[in-house]
């Protein structure tokens, strides 16, 4: 599950999975609480929150920032839906704005931390090259998703890629993809994500600007504090 937040890590990661795994669009999520937009791709209007699927993997990808007041209902809907599908794990993917990453100007390999609500998932996290989120606060949509999954006994994992706070960060998304490869037994090569990093940064500028504006006007806090 990826929505636009810090560094656009969730959206870049999920779109890359969809593209690399050649996942087909299976449907969309709609609500009166979502921004009043339709996305036009190649002259066809589509809903902005997509559901893609292939075999037993589903990806929910939003092309619009989620208004803070929509977080709870969206999280409830996703958690209930996952439970009804008997999903083995709900993974939220996002960025954790990092001062170190801002200061290194996006160079070096970003770390990935995870929050899980079962011992079993926590154990896989450590062997997947991510560290556990020891102390801090996660807020916004992913915190709500974790809460709603907890309430239903649904396994949940939130992966936070250390990211630039204000700009799209494809390298942070690549670090998250590597962890997802091990957790979900995927084989997605991150080479082209890193190679096309400049291109992705150019193409996601507008979404980044909208995300910044949405977080300023709606008072949405960053996804994590540590």
């Amino acid at each position, binding site marked *: 599950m990826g929505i636009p937040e810090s560094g656009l890590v969730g959206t870049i990661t999920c779109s890359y999975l969809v593209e690399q795994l050649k996942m087909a669009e299976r449907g969309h999520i709609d609500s009166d609480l979502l921004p009043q937009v339709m*996305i*036009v*791709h*190649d*002259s066809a209007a589509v809903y902005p929150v997509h559901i893609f699927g292939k075999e037993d993997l589903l990806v929910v990808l939003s092309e619009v920032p989620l208004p803070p007041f929509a977080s709870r209902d969206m999280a409830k809907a996703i958690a209930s839906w996952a439970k009804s599908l008997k999903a083995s794990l709900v993974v939220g993917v996002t960025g954790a704005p990092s001062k170190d990453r*801002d200061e*290194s*100007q*996006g*160079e070096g390999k970003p770390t990935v931390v995870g929050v899980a609500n079962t011992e079993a998932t926590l154990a896989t996290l450590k062997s997947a090259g991510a560290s556990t989120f020891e102390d801090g606060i996660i807020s916004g949509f992913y915190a709500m998703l974790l809460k709603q999954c907890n309430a239903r006994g649904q396994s949940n994992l939130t992966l936070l890629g250390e990211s*630039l*706070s*204000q*700009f*799209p960060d494809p390298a942070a998304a690549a670090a998250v993809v590597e962890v997802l490869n091990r957790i979900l037994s995927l084989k997605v090569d991150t080479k082209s994500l890193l190679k096309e*990093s*400049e*291109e992705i*940064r*150019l*193409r996601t*500028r*507008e979404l*980044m*600007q909208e995300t*910044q*504006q949405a977080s*300023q006007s709606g008072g949405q806090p960053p996804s994590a504090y540590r």
Partner: protein
Amino acid sequence: MSGENDQFENFGRGIESLFSETFGMIEESLFDIASRSLRPLFSVDVSEDMVTATFDLPGVNRKDVAITCTEDAISVEAQMARPVRLRVASGQRDQREFVRYSRKVLLPVRVDPDGGSAKFRNGIAVVKLPRRREGKRVRIDADPSVKRLRR
């Protein structure tokens, strides 16, 4: 006729740049089709003694970046290593070619432009400028009424 149109176009551009310089990030287009330039994403951080402005310039080499500062603004001009083609609005089929970045950002506080330093890595420019100390200390005169009371 074309002269009139040009005038209107220039007027429009003037207004647009006035808005962009005044309000920064607010609802501003990231494209300037007429000059084939992109307005880079940026952020400004103000601390007690420093202003840090960061610009996202993917596709640019260090030698092609020019940064100029005044007391209250930073301008960035950068030539791209190669032109890029981008869709300027969703739903629009045709793409436009862009060759450079250009942006002037008004700062929320005054800075000392001579004390600035800049770094460029990974297509991100970071400019640090010391804040200008404003105002001079005003001496408070002795209160004459105090003397009277002592008498």
